[in-house]
């Protein structure tokens, strides 16, 4: 191997590159603050996903290819398969994460299973234990590649804590703190970090492709000659045959690795961070679906050629993991070696930064804060703004994780435990996959099932992969693997319960998946989730449904009992301010069950501010375990907007219904009134009929029983009988007329008629009446009145009615006058009397059937009450109007009062031109 580059140059180049990353991140943060975030670009998003490719890819793939041939590929085929599921699976996760404001995968699982702090903490812990050694691997890769590049120059000059590993850890801690934990952002977006990751992804791809092209065409003159040379050596030829990667036990490894890497693509804290948390728009996935797999394909294109070339060039002298740096160096292309080193540095830096930020968020939100809340609530309550405390926790977590990783690197060095950590980490985080995916589609999955599943899976993982890796590193006796603990053969970690002949990874995956999924499904099936869990389950499973059943899931019966006074105070304070909440629930113990009365109070208070439906939702959500978050509440409110829209429609319909009901009620009242009128009419008519009948009968009996009656007396009685009979006939005629008019069965003979003639006839018909009562009837009819349209008999009937009405009400000695005069195109006929007149309020009533002005109860009615009603109907049928007003002054000075009944008739101009008649 060549001398290598001066370590100072490499160090300066590395620091310059990292500074450039800082600058890019800073620039991206500034742009995002200005509202033009670069991370909205789908290409940047796809590139940031490539944080998946760590040094394990950049250096390690070549190492794996050197022993497994194409066996290194499943690690990249798995993510490709997962991305094909993006429209189904990832879309849903992204939507949920956005609506629920998820901050990490631990948070996601905890929320799905009813805000379980236990599950969140378990996931955070498992992820930290499983992934931190992976960080150590990155530190080691940078250190080793640095040595390879510089020829190990620095190794001799540094003290214990001043090696490259520590240096890179320190710089990464700084970067993670500056760009990953500068502020508590509700959305947890880190545009600077993502932009830097995307750039790093580009750098490592370009670096690897450059190295590949240099090796293939620069060192070997093309792919065919490279493969031809390799094919000549049997030990290398087998690397591109199928048997070492695809057959026998290797096929199990292939499948296992594919599944594990697909799960890791989803569940690794850093992948969840860039793919879900940092995603600003779901549609970014559409491009990532093919762009990210394409990236994976490209970065792996030259892995096998580089491995073959390295094996041919160096034999066994150089670790295959370092071929990427060693080959350019060997070929004299030092700048290319430096680029390769920077590519590896990019891979390491990206992984370390995102992983520590994701883990620190998780540790802070799902482990430290819940613990603080439980044991030191005063520390959180004291500060009005908990953000600085949270930031401090996160920064300490970042430093702690990196120190832990560095310590592991120093301790483990080149031990198996470190070298194999890549897939072991995958297997650890894969334990989250059943609860994660199951929680998206299976409403019945419960918290206890998820906690037990993840715990069981993690324990089996630790027993079948982590502990054996310690044993192979020499930290546990080797007999642990060979004979099992305490020499119990059934407990051998690589052959649990005698399952032999499997690859350790496939073996671990089988048992951990069995324990995990079995416990998860089994417990869930026999578990009863509480209301909060059911609400969250519905919110996750039905995230795409227009109106989720989240609200109805938590039925009142469930949450009424679950709410405490503290819950109510919190939710009321959120909408109405703490003061109102304090007033409303003063003097009550916050932990006390709220009870229906306080709930109704809270509901009423909230309904006043946000409406009834929202108030119920707010209350329902206040019961979920732990603090209710505004985002969640808002989401549920969004959902209830549909409910509100429905209730608006309902209100409209109710209003319509009310109007219809009003109309019905009015109609009913009218009917009742008519019914009453009919009864009145019957009693009136009966009365009217009985009076003449009584006198007729009485007189007839007298005449019949007493033949000796004086002839004059007899004559007089007979006259009365005749008169009363006439009255009866008249009454019956009127009733019949009225009935006919009402039924529309009257025969109308409408024609042009001479008003003077019919008025004269009417006067003649009633003259006797006036004479009899001693009333002076004067008639004032102009000579040349034009003809009017009407039915002669009916009009006469009207005039007779009015005249006899006047005769009835005018006192003896009074006066009545009949007038007719032209009024526009109508003839106005008026009957003026000097009677008591009609009070203003009665002027409409008198024209109704059976209604007579005055008190019908005390006084005997003077008529049938049908005369005016019949007159009104006739006049209106003929197209005229009828009314009553005060009599003009001058008719009778004595009474000074009187009524003037008038009606109009249309002139018969069309049929008989004006003046034709006379």
């Amino acid at each position, binding site marked *: 191997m060549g001398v290598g580059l001066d370590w100072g140059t490499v160090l300066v180049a590395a620091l310059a590159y990292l500074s450039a990353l800082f600058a890019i991140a800073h620039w991206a943060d500034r742009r995002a603050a200005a509202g033009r975030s670069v991370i909205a670009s789908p290409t940047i998003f796809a590139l940031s996903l490539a944080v998946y490719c760590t040094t394990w890819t950049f250096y390690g793939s070549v190492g794996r290819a050197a022993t497994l041939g194409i066996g290194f*590929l499943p690690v990249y085929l798995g993510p*490709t398969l997962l991305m*094909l599921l993006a429209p189904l699976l990832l879309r849903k996760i992204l939507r949920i994460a956005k609506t629920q404001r998820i901050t990490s995968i631990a948070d996601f699982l905890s929320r799905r299973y009813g805000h379980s702090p236990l599950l969140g903490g378990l996931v955070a812990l498992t992820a930290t234990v499983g992934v931190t050694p992976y960080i150590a691997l990155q530190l080691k890769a940078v250190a080793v590649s640095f040595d390879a590049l510089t020829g190990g120059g620095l190794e001799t000059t540094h003290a214990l804590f001043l090696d490259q590993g520590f240096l890179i850890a320190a710089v990464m801690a700084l970067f993670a703190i500056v760009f990953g934990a500068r502020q508590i952002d509700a959305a947890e977006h880190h545009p600077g970090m993502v932009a830097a990751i995307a750039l790093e992804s580009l750098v490592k791809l370009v670096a690897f492709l450059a190295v590949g092209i240099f090796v293939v065409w620069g060192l070997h003159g093309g792919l065919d000659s490279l493969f031809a040379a390799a094919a000549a050596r049997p030990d290398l030829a087998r690397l591109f045959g199928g048997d070492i990667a695809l057959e026998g036990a290797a096929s199990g490894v292939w499948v296992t690795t594919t599944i594990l890497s697909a799960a890791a693509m989803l569940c690794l804290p850093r992948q969840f961070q860039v793919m879900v948390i940092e995603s600003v728009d779901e549609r970014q996935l559409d491009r990532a679906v093919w762009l990210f797999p394409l990236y994976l394909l490209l970065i792996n294109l030259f892995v096998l050629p580089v491995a073959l070339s390295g094996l041919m060039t160096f034999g066994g002298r150089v670790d295959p993991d370092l071929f990427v740096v060693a080959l350019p160096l060997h070929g004299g292309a030092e700048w290319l070696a430096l680029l390769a080193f920077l590519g590896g540095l990019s891979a390491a830096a990206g992984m370390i930064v995102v992983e520590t930020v994701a883990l620190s968020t998780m540790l802070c939100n799902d482990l430290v804060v819940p613990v603080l809340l439980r044991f030191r609530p005063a520390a959180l309550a004291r500060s009005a703004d908990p953000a600085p405390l949270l930031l401090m926790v996160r920064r300490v977590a970042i430093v702690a994780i990196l120190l832990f990783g560095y310590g592991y690197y120093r301790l483990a060095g080149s031990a198996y435990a470190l070298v194999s950590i890549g897939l072991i980490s995958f297997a650890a985080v894969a334990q989250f996959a059943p609860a994660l995916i199951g929680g998206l589609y299976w409403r019945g999955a419960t918290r206890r099932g998820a906690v037990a599943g993840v715990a069981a899976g993690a324990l089996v993982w630790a027993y079948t992969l982590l502990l054996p890796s310690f044993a192979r590193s020499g930290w546990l006796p080797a007999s642990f693997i060979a004979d099992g603990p305490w020499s119990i053969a059934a407990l051998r970690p690589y052959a649990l319960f005698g399952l032999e002949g499997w690859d350790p990874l496939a073996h671990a995956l089988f048992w951990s998946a069995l324990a995990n999924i079995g416990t998860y499904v089994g417990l869930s099936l026999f578990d009863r989730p509480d209301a909060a869990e059911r609400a969250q389950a519905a919110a996750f499973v039905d995230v795409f449904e227009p109106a989720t059943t989240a609200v109805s899931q938590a039925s009142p019966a469930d949450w009424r009992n679950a709410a405490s006074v503290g819950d109510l105070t919190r939710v009321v304070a959120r909408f109405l301010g703490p003061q109102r909440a304090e007033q409303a629930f003063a003097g009550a113990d916050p932990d006390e069950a709220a009870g229906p009365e306080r709930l109704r109070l809270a509901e009423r208070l909230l309904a006043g501010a946000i409406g009834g439906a929202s108030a119920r939702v707010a209350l329902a959500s206040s019961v979920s375990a732990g603090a209710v978050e505004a985002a969640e509440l*808002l989401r549920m409110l969004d959902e209830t907007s549909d409910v509100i829209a429905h209730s608006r429609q309902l209100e409209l319909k109710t209003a319509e219904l009310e109007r219809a009901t009003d109309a019905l009620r009015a109609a009913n009242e009218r009917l009742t009134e008519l019914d009453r009128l009919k009864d009145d009419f019957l009693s009136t008519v009966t009365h009217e009929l009985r009076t003449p009948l009584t006198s007729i009968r009485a007189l007839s009996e007298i005449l019949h029983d007493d033949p000796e009656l004086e002839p004059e007396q007899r004559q007089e009685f007979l006259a009365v009988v005749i008169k009363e009979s006439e009255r009866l006939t008249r009454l019956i005629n009127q009733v019949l007329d009225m009935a006919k008019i009402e039924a529309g069965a009257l025969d109308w003979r409408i024609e042009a008629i001479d008003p003077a003639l019919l008025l004269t006839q009417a006067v003649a018909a009633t003259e006797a009446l006036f004479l009899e009562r001693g009333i002076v009837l004067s008639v004032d009819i102009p000579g040349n009145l034009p003809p009017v349209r009407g039915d002669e008999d009916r009009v006469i009937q009207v005039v007779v009615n009015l005249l006899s009405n006047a005769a009835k009400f005018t006192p003896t000695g009074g006066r009545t006058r009949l007038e007719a005069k032209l009024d526009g195109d109508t003839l106005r006929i008026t009957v003026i009397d000097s009677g008591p007149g009609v009070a203003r309020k009665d002027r409409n009533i008198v024209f109704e059937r059976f209604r007579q002005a005055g008190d019908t109860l005390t006084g005997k009615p003077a008529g049938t009450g049908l005369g005016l009603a019949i007159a009104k109907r006739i006049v209106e049928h003929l197209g005229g109007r009828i009314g009553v007003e005060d009599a003009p002054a001058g008719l009778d000075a004595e009474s000074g009062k009187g009524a003037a009944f008038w009606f109009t008739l249309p002139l018969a101009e069309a049929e008989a031109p004006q003046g034709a008649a006379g």
Partner: protein
Amino acid sequence: MSAPARDEQPAPRRRERMAGLFLLASVLFSPPLLGLFGVEGTVLGVPALYAGVFGVWAVVILLAALAGRSR
């Protein structure tokens, strides 16, 4: 926070195509099928298995891109 738009879920046709592609790719990436490429011989100087695996992979990516493009 605005109410999430309800029509943003990918078109059903596309989701179905991608699900179909996922199943196809799962089969294509399985050892028995890839093993069919493990024959002697080369494609343009590249061993058949190596070319075959990358070829299948590239086709899957191409189909994924097409599935997203055409409606």
